[in-house]
């Protein structure tokens, strides 16, 4: 019986909104064009992240793929980051293409704009999933067979939709409240579905790498590849260890000097020392292992903070009023057929904008608890609302009543 590490990395960058004031509204429409030295400059962020994370991590991953035929992984890459790489870091995009060209890297489907459209507009959601599929086909000559929704948000409805849409698998957080006594280290079957399978993130093991790796106060520090492989081997019945994390874990969340790249370099060999151990992409895990049980998730679960819900994006009135206002424009926006306007409207749907407006960590002045290019959640909101007003202005210019 084989045992697989299912490594899945998520690559995403939003189009951050620049300092966009009420005096910009109705005067210019370049919401996403911050000056290069500003914190919310998308071009600058792409350059920094490419240098610190994408380029070195892809180099290591490609070497691992070339050295070891057993090594495999899965990636999801949003449309918004793909576009930005095309514009500002084509060599990084090429390095992702090189990974996929090995034939052992699977691309996972999602919304092009990393949006929460599933919860607001099924029509718009499907349009963005299709856009992403086309972009992946065009750049990587692959068609996603497994789906993940933004922020790993998941519920029964989503599984039902993905099943009907023909996906063979879907990804979710292996959250204790959902799994109960069950282990995330198996393939599951979503409730109310026919064919689709569910892979659930082992958040303890994933977070050991993604969050705790460089923490010198952590009892397990330093985490070495052989120690980690040893932990996995200690579960005799598991079939698949679903290690899901942000791609930026490598080099950005965990800096180079934590030794994260060495860990990555050594993990395959340490793991493969034990006969029967292997790596699988998400599709392979679904093809190889029987579903252990059915999982029923009537409410939405995400991979974010201790609540594992959408409250980081939709937890306060600023966030909900911003997002309902935006989706409220849908029919008018789409009726214009103005591709630039529609695209700007979609870029505003990216979940990061709402995350920046989150106030729940801000109370104790712990403003570094989350990453935001804005000084306060209120400033994030002001920029967003001003851009939203400008979108409405553009509609009114076309004679559409707003």
């Amino acid at each position, binding site marked *: 019986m084989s045992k697989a590490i299912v490594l899945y990395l998520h690559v995403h960058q939003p189009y951050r909104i620049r300092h966009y004031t*009420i005096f910009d509204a109705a005067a210019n429409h370049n919401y996403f064009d911050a000056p290069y030295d500003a914190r919310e400059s998308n071009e600058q962020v792409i350059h920094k992240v490419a240098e610190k994370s994408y380029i070195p991590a892809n180099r290591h991953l490609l070497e691992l793929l070339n050295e070891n035929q057993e090594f495999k992984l899965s990636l999801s890459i949003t449309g918004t980051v793909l576009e930005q790489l095309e514009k500002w870091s084509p060599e990084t995009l090429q390095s992702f293409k090189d990974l996929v060209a090995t034939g052992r890297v699977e691309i996972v489907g999602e919304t092009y704009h990393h949006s929460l459209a599933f919860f607001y507009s099924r029509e718009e959601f499907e349009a963005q999933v299709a856009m992403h599929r086309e972009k992946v086909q065009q750049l990587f000559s692959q068609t996603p067979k497994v789906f993940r929704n933004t922020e790993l948000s998941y519920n029964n409805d989503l599984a039902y939709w993905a099943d009907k849409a023909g996906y063979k698998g879907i990804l979710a957080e292996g959250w204790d409240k959902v799994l109960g006594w069950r282990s995330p280290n198996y393939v599951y079957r979503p409730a109310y579905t026919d064919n689709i399978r569910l892979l659930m993130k082992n958040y303890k093991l994933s977070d050991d790498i993604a969050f705790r790796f460089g923490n010198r106060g952590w009892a397990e520090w330093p985490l070495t590849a052989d120690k980690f492989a040893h932990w996995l081997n200690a579960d005799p019945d598991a079939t698949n260890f679903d290690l899901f994390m942000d791609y930026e874990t490598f080099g950005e969340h965990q800096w180079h000097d934590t030794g994260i790249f060495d860990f990555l370099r050594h993990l395959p060999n340490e793991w493969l020392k034990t006969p029967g151990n292997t790596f699988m992409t998400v599709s392979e895990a679904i093809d190889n292992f029987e579903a252990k049980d059915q999982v029923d998730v009537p409410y939405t679960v995400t991979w974010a903070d201790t609540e594992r819900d959408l409250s980081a994006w939709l937890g306060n009135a600023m966030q909900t009023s911003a997002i309902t206002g935006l989706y409220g424009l849908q029919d008018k926006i789409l009726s214009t057929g103005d591709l630039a306007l529609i695209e700007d409207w979609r870029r505003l749907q990216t979940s990061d904008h709402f995350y920046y407006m989150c106030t729940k960590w801000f109370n104790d*002045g712990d403003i570094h608890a989350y990453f935001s290019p804005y000084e306060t959640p209120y400033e994030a909101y002001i920029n967003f609302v001003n851009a939203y007003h400008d979108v409405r202005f553009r509609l009114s210019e076309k004679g559409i009543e707003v």
Partner: protein
Amino acid sequence: MLGWELPPHNSGGLGVACYQLSKALSKKGVDIEFVLPYTADHSDIDFMKINAAHPQNVEQVLKSGIAYDSFKYIKTNGEVEWIDIIGQSALYEEAVGRIAELAEFDVIHAHDWLTCRAGLRAKMVSGKPLIVHIHSIEADRAGQPHGGNPLVREIESISLLLADHIIAVSEHTKRGIMREYGIPADKIEVVHNSINPDDLAPLDSNNAYRYLETMKSLGYRVVVNIGRLSVQKGLPNLLRAFARAAERTPKMFLLVVGSGEQYYELIMLAAELGIGDKVLFTEFQRGKNWRDAYAIGDLFVMPSVSEPFGITALEAIGYGTPVLISKQSGVSEVLHNCLKVDFWDIDEMANKIAAVAGNDSLRDEMHAQSHREWERMSWDKSVDKLLPIYQKHLSGAAS
């Protein structure tokens, strides 16, 4: 404790800060004799002894509402004399010197330059350590670095040099003291002002600003400023920013509560900017009219050029209004859930005013979150930083 004023005879934040600080200190067992420069009935204050330092042969000293006005000295022989602020400060020094010879105390705690000469005299007479508590320096009041009245600057300079220890109400003030007077950093302790949520008098159900209430129900929004109308407070920038914001969000009023030397200038400026019909000036207010001004606002703006602390921002939050404060303020060092702007950045001030005036969910979320911060504030925490300084000088550990 040497202070220039106490509520209800205060002209601004200084009196409130002295009152709250003394109250919190007495709770921790500190015995305080508070020496004022004027005669007043403070029988409602039972946690400390309050004395008026009368000059010899003066029966009563009567203070007007506004700081920096002349005091009325009624002599024992019935004569009446009006004396200006520098003269008052000198007479106070003389009187405090006589008190210091007779009274028993361990530490002299003097608030701001007006009491500094008296503090130095008391130190000289008694040999006890002098702690100078700086709520604002002359450059703050003048609204520009190295500015202000040279006589006042001289008093500040000498007192800060001779003080045994200096308390500053913010990092902003500490930097100012270092910049203006070359005092070394380790002689200055920052003890932020605070607020006791329970001490704010409650609102009643009828707001005094009925016109504004009516206009709010018609969709108008109200921006409020409360403070002295002086250069330090940066009000011309607020008027300009408000005028710009009103281009985008015309359904707004600006309520300016306060008096001061810029009063007429500001009225004229509002008219020149074409917002004369949107700006309401009320002059200085107390009690219900003062509380209700905070409460009627949708946004409180404190645009100060240089604000040592800025307690009004915390009062506004207490009365239900979120705040936009200048980055050049002490309160911006302790408050997170608010909007901040450089005092000179009129466009950004306008942008933020328009954003809040045009957006109730921003206003409400920001207030809800800031109110949670406000509820956790207390003068007790400030006093906890002060007591070790007393202790250090009592035990003679410091030279």
